């Protein structure tokens, strides 16, 4: 069956809420009926067909073509199937994502993968602030699954993350990994100020040594870690080829919080 495809007719001026267009909700529906679904916008309510040309059948495999940063909440709350976004995504991409895969060829705005709990989100470009972080009213940020960011990440990446794995191919903004409860983040580029502020548990792994390290981190020296082998192989299985090496400088912190977390600065 051909993928159920949404092709944007023209770039919308107002933000669109696309959270209804997920495999869970569209299973068994015809393209014509989907085009008739209501689509909330800031200006009021339009229909899906007003903005998108809908073709194809297989709701377990969604395609969004030509989307822009006005297309909010793509894949938000989705729990199954695969979603491919050929273009950019707006805010809340894959927020509260529960399962399946979500791939974006372009950039995503704020809150990408925020409070996600399972599945894999793979963004080739950059993400805005608070990716993998909290959404309003949540106690924890990302609490499972994998969030792969090919480009740069905005500030407050993974705030209050509870579980799961994040990789950042480019640079990350300030307060990356702030108040993380547990989980693993791999930074391949540079990080901004105050990385790991308030870290309780969890691992922040840096390919490049951060310019500034909070004084509330305790240096434990350079040690060989079998764990790095495991992580490198797990990432390879997910198509992320990165050499982590065997040794890393370990700093435990944030001693101003619980202090059971770590920074591993690769050699």
């Amino acid at each position: 069956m051909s993928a159920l495809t949404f092709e944007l007719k023209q770039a919308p001026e107002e933000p669109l809420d696309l959270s209804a267009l997920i495999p869970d909700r569209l299973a068994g529906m015809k393209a014509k009926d989907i085009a008739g679904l209501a689509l909330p916008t800031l200006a009021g309510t339009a229909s899906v067909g007003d903005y998108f040309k809908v073709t194809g059948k297989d709701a377990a495999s969604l395609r969004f073509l030509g989307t822009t940063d006005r297309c909010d909440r793509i894949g938000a709350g989705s729990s199954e199937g695969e979603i491919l976004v050929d273009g950019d995504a707006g805010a809340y991409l894959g927020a509260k994502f529960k399962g399946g895969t979500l791939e974006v060829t372009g950039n995503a705005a704020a809150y990408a993968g925020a409070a996600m709990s399972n599945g894999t989100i793979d963004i080739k470009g950059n993400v805005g602030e608070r990716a993998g972080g909290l959404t309003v009213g949540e106690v924890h940020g990302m609490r499972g699954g994998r969030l792969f960011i090919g480009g740069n990440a905005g500030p407050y990446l993974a705030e209050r993350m509870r579980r799961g794995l994040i990789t950042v191919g480019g640079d990350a903004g300030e307060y990356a990994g702030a108040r993380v409860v547990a989980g693993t983040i791999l930074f391949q580029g540079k990080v901004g100020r105050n990385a790991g502020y308030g870290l309780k548990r969890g691992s922040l792994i840096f390919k490049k040594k951060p310019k500034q390290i909070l004084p509330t981190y305790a240096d434990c020296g350079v040690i060989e870690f079998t764990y790095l082998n495991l992580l490198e192989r797990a990432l390879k299985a997910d198509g992320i080829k990165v050499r982590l090496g065997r040794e890393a400088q370990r700093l435990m912190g944030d001693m101003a919080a619980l202090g059971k977390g770590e920074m591993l600065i690769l050699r």
Partner: protein
Amino acid sequence: MSDIKLKGVTIVDTFAEAFPMVGTRVIITAPTAKWADIAARTMTGFATSVIACGAEGGIERTLSRSETYDGRPGVSVLLFTMSQSKLQTQLRDRVGQCVLTCPGTACFAGLPPKKGLKLGHSLRFFGDGWQMSKVLNGRRFWRVPVMDGEFVCEDRTGYTRDAVGGGNLLVVAKSHAGALAACERAVKAMAPMPDIITPFPGGIVRSGSKVGSKYKGQMASTNDAYCPTLKGAVKSELPMNAEAVLEIVIDGLTPEAIAKAMGAGIKAIVDGGTRDGVLRIAAGNYGGNLGPHHFHLKEVIA
């Protein structure tokens, strides 16, 4: 009884009687193959028979860097007991005392770990609060700080209730040296085979036992029917020219694996023909009423 002869060696028309066991596999890795081997040998050293060791265990095979989860040299170990709860205790104690303690090692599941036996799940408490849990692709690992860095241990490993213990071969020969040489060949042939171990010293046991004893409280005693020194005094199974009998005991994760190993063992023994003075190959059983698994020698070489 219709015994058959292969290259001059009599294959007695009998069967090995074996019992259901609960079995598990763990993978031990280390910086070098030497240290993975040391950990595995230590863990399975005192594990010949459930009669007094609590478990039967052994090295299944060595693993290359490309076969292990962390890319280091490894060894796969099989461990068997009569119940799941005993296996849990034995696994925890043996990995805790012999692998956790061994320089540089890590320990991983050798069977799918879902709802399996606790491994790092118990041993993490050695970390006294400094242990860290890491989940990678749905598998949980514990990083426990130790004096040489970190002991990495998977949370759980799987187990099977389809395991079988007590597959065996009895090799009757004209001389001790001949029996030993033939058995060594058989053990060597079985060594690379998957899903089985030969738990006794070097894979060979010289003190085959029967159930019970004249002494109260002695669960097992010498198999007098196969003792060459008692040939004339008891109802012996041995011909007068037999001087030594050695046994190979096989435990496996599946009955099929045991049958294959027995077949390979018999083939390796008879390939030597009568050169070593092997007279016959038999198997130990208790009349067929005790164990549900019967491995007929004729069938395993078919």
